[in-house]
C-alpha cells in the first residue's frame, strides 16, 4: 500500500478488516488480501465503482460468517470449539508460567496465546503491546530513578511484571465469556 492509495480504498479496507475480526485468521486474511488485490492500483473513481460492486464490508463479513457456520454439521453442537484445550493451556502458561519461570514463562505464554484460536488478532496484538509496553516503561522509570539516586527501582520492575498474569486473566475471562471462540 503506497501513499497514493485513495482514501476511499484505505477506509474500505480498514472497515473490512474490523468487520472480519471475529472470523478465523486464515479466512480473514484471504478475504482482505483478495479484495486488496482487486482495489490496488485503482484511482479514487475506479475504486469507488469497484467498492459499490463489492458491497458493504458488514455484508461481506455476514456472508463469510454464514458460510463458515454452514461447516458446523461436521461437529456436534455440544462439541467444544476447535483448539479450546490449546487456548486454555496457553493462558495457564501465561498466568502460572510468569511466576514459575520468570520472563521465559511469560514470553512462552504470550507465544502460546498468539498461536491459540480463542482470541482475535487484535486481542493478541493488544496483549503483546500491553505487556511489552508496561515492562519497557517500568525499566525506563527504574533507570531514571536509579540515576536520580532514588530507591525502590526493583519494586517498580516487580510490580510492572504483574502485567503478564493480569493480561492472562483478562484473556481467560474474555475467552470464557464467549465459550472459547475467537
Amino acid at each position: 500500500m503506497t501513499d497514493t492509495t485513495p482514501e476511499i480504498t484505505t477506509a474500505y479496507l480498514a472497515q473490512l478488516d474490523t468487520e472480519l475480526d471475529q472470523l478465523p485468521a486464515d479466512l480473514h486474511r484471504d478475504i482482505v488480501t483478495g479484495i486488496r488485490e482487486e482495489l490496488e492500483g485503482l484511482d479514487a473513481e475506479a475504486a469507488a465503482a469497484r467498492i459499490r460492486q463489492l458491497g458493504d464490508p458488514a455484508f461481506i463479513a455476514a456472508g463469510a460468517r454464514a458460510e463458515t457456520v454452514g461447516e458446523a454439521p461436521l461437529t456436534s453442537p455440544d462439541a467444544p470449539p476447535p483448539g479450546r484445550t490449546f487456548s486454555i493451556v496457553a493462558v495457564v502458561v501465561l498466568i502460572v508460567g510468569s511466576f514459575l519461570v520468570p520472563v521465559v514463562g511469560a514470553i512462552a505464554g504470550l507465544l502460546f496465546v498468539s498461536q491459540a484460536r480463542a482470541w482475535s488478532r487484535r486481542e493478541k496484538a493488544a496483549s503483546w503491546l500491553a505487556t511489552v509496553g508496561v515492562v519497557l516503561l517500568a525499566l525506563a522509570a527504574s533507570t531514571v530513578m536509579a540515576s536520580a539516586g532514588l530507591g525502590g527501582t526493583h519494586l517498580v520492575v516487580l510490580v510492572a511484571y504483574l502485567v503478564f498474569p493480569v493480561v492472562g486473566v483478562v484473556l481467560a475471562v474474555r475467552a470464557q465469556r464467549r465459550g472459547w471462540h475467537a
Partner: protein
Amino acid sequence: MTADVGAQLRKGVVEYCILGLLDREPMYGWQLSEQLVEAGLVASIGTLYPILGRLRAQGLATAFDQPSATGPVRKYYRLTPLGRDQLGAFRLQWAPFTASVHRLIGEDTRD
C-alpha cells in the same frame, strides 16, 4: 422442509460450479465472485472465500500467486487432478439426477 428452497439448492451445487469455472481456466477471487454473484449462487465475495478454503482443504483446488499485466500480484485458484475427478463424477450424475427430479415433480399445470 425449508421454505428457502433456492438456498438449499445453491448450497448443494455451488462448490461444483466453482470447480466447473476453474476447469476452464485458473481464476482469482473477484473473477469467480463476479460470475457466481451474477448467477445468484453466492451472495457476495465474502461467501466465496470460505468455500474456496474448503475446496483447498479437500485438495480439490489449489492457489498460486501470479503477477498481472497491469496491476498487483494476484492469488489465482486452479483445479487439482482430484478436483477434476470430482467434477467429472458430478457431471456424470447431474443430468440423470435433474431428469429424475423433473420426472418426479413434473410441470406445474395449474393456471
